[in-house]
């Protein structure tokens, strides 16, 4: 469509021949998001979206400002400013009292080496911690113990009242890139190529001495671990910069399975331009991993991969899901998946059972890739892969175009649709158009009723027309 605009028969370079990027066209019958609201408050890249409750979410980004939004109307509820530099981590601290949803605390860490605790109901700054030696890159809350942890160059444990309970030694200059809670009062921190398991020792009754001890270091990744996710308290999935996806048991802290390389050597034979692209590590780095009960969804380079935990193998893939790196993946109900990418697009996928998978050419290529991987530690895997066909496929059912720059994160609100944030400083709220329309009608009649109750004659009753 660019062509006719530019005119003169000049072909736009690149796009068409670059890759077999799946495109869906304009007719997207399964895409329910037919309404969007552009939310504008940030002045720099928006990197984080965090859900506060059923109808509110907070956004934070490089401008150091946290904004609380209504997911329903897109209204800006609060603007929290207190950080002087970009925000590096956001998490929420659930209120102890069940009735106090509004008083949920919001924790933000920033490059200004401070962590601020906000009251998300009022926007008040509850407390500010500026005693960090390094930038806090991740925050996690252990609700069971009522503590939270901050991970920078070291790992600190804080009480709800913001007392420093204990901290580890200096771990690494690169710092902790990811932090995940696992059972038995343990946390897993991704430090460089290693996963370090720390055990928190809560004090006995009456005592105050907390302690945090290193329990185990899990080695295996060849490169920096970028993503870490806890799957159903049984396994832990980590993904690295060079495309190694490893599944660890969280109880025995051992490697359960690994998909080591998403690089596709088979394509080298084709001598296509694409291979050069593929060889860049960035194209196989695992930026984000999410999961549901049975599957792990990994954003690998520009592609999307579905790894089945039971079968311990990849069941579906979409190697060219986007034009450039996929930054975030989120799971929707109905076996749907949403991915957002550096190219500014958001795509909705559906995981479909595919019985005749073996006959299809795409999975074949996919197996080849696994069969002749560059680094192949798990010798048993390729053989098995070649035997069994993938049973699923990822079908594109819609794309959401709105951002003009890379989409950093997507947040799914059941009732209120999706929120996406992007480097173009915008947040877009994608709404289910038909549902919104119905909702508005309902509100309209409610309002009419309210008004009718007090003053005006009842709303015009055109119902008679149909009768």
């Amino acid at each position, binding site marked *: *469509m660019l062509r006719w605009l*530019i005119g003169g028969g000049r072909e736009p370079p690149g796009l068409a021949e670059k890759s077999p990027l799946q495109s869906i066209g304009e007719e997207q019958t399964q895409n329910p998001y037919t309404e969007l609201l552009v939310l504008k408050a940030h002045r720099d890249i928006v990197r984080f979206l965090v859900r506060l409750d059923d109808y509110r979410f907070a956004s934070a980004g490089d401008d150091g400002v946290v904004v609380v939004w209504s997911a329903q109307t897109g209204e800006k509820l609060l603007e929290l400013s207190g950080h002087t530099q970009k925000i590096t981590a956001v998490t929420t601290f659930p209120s102890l009292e069940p009735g106090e949803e509004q008083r949920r605390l919001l924790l933000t860490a920033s490059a200004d080496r401070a962590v601020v605790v906000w009251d998300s109901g009022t926007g008040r700054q509850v407390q500010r911690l500026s005693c960090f030696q390094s930038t806090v890159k991740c925050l996690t809350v252990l609700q069971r113990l009522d503590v939270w942890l901050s991970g920078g160059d070291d790992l600190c444990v804080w009480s709800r009242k913001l007392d420093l309970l204990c901290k580890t030694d200096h771990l690494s200059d690169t710092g902790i890139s990811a932090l995940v809670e696992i059972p038995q009062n343990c946390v897993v921190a991704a430090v460089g190529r290693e996963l370090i398991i720390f055990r928190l020792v809560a004090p006995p009754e009456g005592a105050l001495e907390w302690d945090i001890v290193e329990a185990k270091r899990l080695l295996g990744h060849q490169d920096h671990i970028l993503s870490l996710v806890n799957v159903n308290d049984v396994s832990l999935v980590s993904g690295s910069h060079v495309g190694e996806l490893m599944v660890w048991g969280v109880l025995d802290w051992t490697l359960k399975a690994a998909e080591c390389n998403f690089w596709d050597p088979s394509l080298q034979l084709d001598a296509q331009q694409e291979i050069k692209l593929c060889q860049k590590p960035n194209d196989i780095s695992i930026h984000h991993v999410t999961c549901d009960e049975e599957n792990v969804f990994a954003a690998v380079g520009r592609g999307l991969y579905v790894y089945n935990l039971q079968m311990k193998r990849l069941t579906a893939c979409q190697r060219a899901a986007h034009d450039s790196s996929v930054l975030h993946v989120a799971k929707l109900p109905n076996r749907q998946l949403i991915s957002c990418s550096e190219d500014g697009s958001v795509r909705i996928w559906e995981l479909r059972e595919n019985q005749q998978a073996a006959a299809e050419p795409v999975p074949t290529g996919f197996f080849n890739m696994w069969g002749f991987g560059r680094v192949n530690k798990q010798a048993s895997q390729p053989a098995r892969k070649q035997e069994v066909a993938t049973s699923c496929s990822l079908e594109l059912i819609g794309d959401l175009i709105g951002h003009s720059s890379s989409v950093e994160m997507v947040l799914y609100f059941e009732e209120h649709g999706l929120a996406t944030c992007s480097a173009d400083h915008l947040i877009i709220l994608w709404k289910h158009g038909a549902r919104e329309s119905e909702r508005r009608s309902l*509100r*309209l009649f409610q309002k009419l009723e309210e008004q009718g109750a007090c003053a005006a004659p009842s709303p015009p009753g055109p119902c008679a*027309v149909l009768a």
Partner: protein
Amino acid sequence: MIGAPDVVAYTKEDEYEEEPYNEPALPEEYSVPLYPFASQEAHPWSKLSGAKFSRDFILISEFSEQVGPQPLLTIPNDAKVFGTFDLNYFSLRIMSVDYQASFVGHPPGSAYPKLNFVEDSKVVLGDSKEGAFAYVHHLTLYDLEARGFVRPFCMAYISADQHKIMQQFQELSAEFSRASECLKTGNRKAFAGELEKKLKDLDYTRTVLHTETEIQKKANDKGFYSSQAIEKANELASVEKSIIEHQDLLKQIRSYPHRKLKGSELCSGEMEHGQEEAERAPATSHPDDEPAHADPCTCRPTYTPKLIKAKSTKCFDKKLKTLEELCDTEYFTQTLAQLSHIEHMFRGDLCYLLTSQIDRALRRQQRMTNFLFEDLVEDADRATEHPGRMRSQTSHDRPPSRSLEECLIPKVLVSGSSYKSSVESVPIKMEQELREDGDKEAGSFDRQENLDYLDMDMKGSVSSGESIEVLGTEKSACVLAKSDSQASLTAPLSPQVVRSKAVSHRTISEDSIEVLSTCPSEALIPDDFKASYPSAINEEEAYADGEGAIHFHASLSPLGLPEAEEGGLAAGTAAQVDPSCCIGKESSAQLLPLPAAAHALSAEDGVVSIPPQRCRQKEQGFHVDFATDNTDPSPRDNSCEGFPVYELDPSHLLASRDTSKTSLDSCSDTHSYVGSIASTGSDRTPTSAHPAGPSSERHKKKAGQNALKFIRQYPFAHPAIYSLLSGRTLVVLGEDESIVRKLVTALSIFVPNYSRCAKPVKHWVSSPLHIVDFQKWKLIGLQRVASPASAGTLHALSRYSRYTSILDLDNKTLRCPLYRGALVPRLADHRTQIKRGSTYSLHVQSMLTQLCSKAFLYTFCHHLHLPAHDQETRELVASRRLGFLQLNLGLVNEDVRVVQYLAELLKLHYLREAPGAGPPPLRFDYVPSFLYKI
């Protein structure tokens, strides 16, 4: 990829710029010879009907007891307006018809002179010699010095179009009554003051006389009275009598019946005010106008009584009070303001007036949906909601205000006269439906029509002009009493009659034989063409009027226009209320006989280019009249409801009207105006530069014209308009800013508003578009740059192609979704015979109003959106909704989306709590787009 389009309707830009239709010139034999008496200022067409004035004006005349009927002033006070029109002669005419003027004097049974509170009389009068028709409003003012204490005045609304006068009679009557009431209130106040002064004079005189008598008595104690003493005594007696008489008069004037004021609440305040003033001893006195009675009194605070000479001579050399003195300056200026308001209000031809009246009144019934397409809503609101504000702007009270509700509703309900005329136009077919009230008219009609022919064709050259038609007084206004004395004035004419009349008017105004011989074309031109003449002319006249320029070429254009324009016109005249729609019930009840009339009529107008819709009853009733009443030009700012500020300031009243006019003229001079308003100027709000009324009207006209042109020029206008109506942003891409701006302005008439604020239209953007722009703007003019920078722009455009339709002006392509509905073809028929911008914009308005009412119905239908019972699924409700749209509202294919979009806007608007909550969500559909080329 894109070849140059084979067919380009408009290759030249300047052609696009300027007057849209330069259709081929007339064949030689059809061409009308130039007006033989072409004067420098008037163009020939203005003389068509024989009128010697270029547009309607208001004349105030007085029957002076000294010099007889004389014109006092005209509104507008501009010699150009009435031109060579003989005001003196016409004053004589209009002053000679005051049947009711009853004089104060000594009634037979009464000892004292009695003041008669005379009802104003209202008369319609025609003068075929002058080509003028007038609504004449007679009133009498009291003047202590005048004969019988009264001074007869009249205000006349003079127009070349008798139908306009007839059909607007009630409105004219109402408006002039206000003006008259204002004058009379001021006059009563002044009169009471004058009486008080006179009483003081008399009192003083009496005292003086009394003392003199006493002195004489004392000086002369012979026991008998000298003749001098007797004279003094007589004088004293007559002074006593005079005092009693004047006291009585004062009592009468103060006890002016309040019932008269009940009807016009506007004056009651003034009245009280006036009475208060009157009861206080009036502080102001009228200098040097009482030479006979008292010396000019210059002392302000207290009035020094003067001695009244015994014989007050009512000689003819005394100077009568001026109207301003008679009425108190304050009231006088208010009256002038009211009159100039009237002049503004009734500008334009009848068709236009009626249509906009109906339109406004219907819009009033569509409060909920008005904001969608109406940009004048605010004006109306302002006028109705903030009279206080307007008042505060002026140092004086606002002149008698015509609140909209008051005068509009009766207008729509087809005032007696207009209704009747529509009946009379179709005598035979109407009979069965209108027997009860139509019999009489129908019976008399034929005769009258014949008379008409006779009158016009036979007597035309005789130029009788001696006919007077009394329409009615205040009480009988509705009854349209028809006198047979002048049939030509009363009988509204069928098209043919008017045609012949238009011709005969020409012959009247000129030397008949000569004109007939120099004008063979009249005979050659087929009827249809003849019919089109006046309209074409009027259009141009309107331009000339508004812009000080005359476009002769364009005035020839309507040659190809058969009567079908009337069809289009009819379609455009009134908002259409769907029969299935229960909104307009109140009005349709009153209009009950009209649908029948409409059906009868629709058989008649065979040339209607737009197929009759089932929901077009109302305007059909007006159809014939609209088509024929084209005799008067200048459809302008009667939509301007409030007084422009400059007019509200009484001190500037007369002067500034002229200056404002000239400023308007200068800025709107001919072609440069076209460029400025429609291209560069249109982005800034038109109100900034000009008074709101006229320019927005003109703006509308321009937009309508350009929209029409767009529709004709581009075969893919329909999908483009559909995009706008369904809320898909239309990007107009082009290199030339003025062309883009112009088209954007034109297309903006199709853009629904979010709320009452400005339309979501961005006239000119040169930076790449973002998603926010599509949420905010629904129509964008985008610059195509040749530089590499444009790549970003184009890339953004292609990226967001899902949200936009793209109209490429340079390549003449349109990329947008398919449209297969039935709505837009009706709205924008490229074969439409509508040629005038204002007509077309009215047509669009009516179609959109209809659309709005559908959207309203859809939005507020309870059962369409809520499940009827608990078990009902969402899908069931949705299917019911769709069924309603398709079956009940008769929407086809994509039309559904239009109504759905409007419904969403309605909901959002209604639900919006805070007014400034930003644009509504961007709604879009996942539908494929297609590329259209010419």
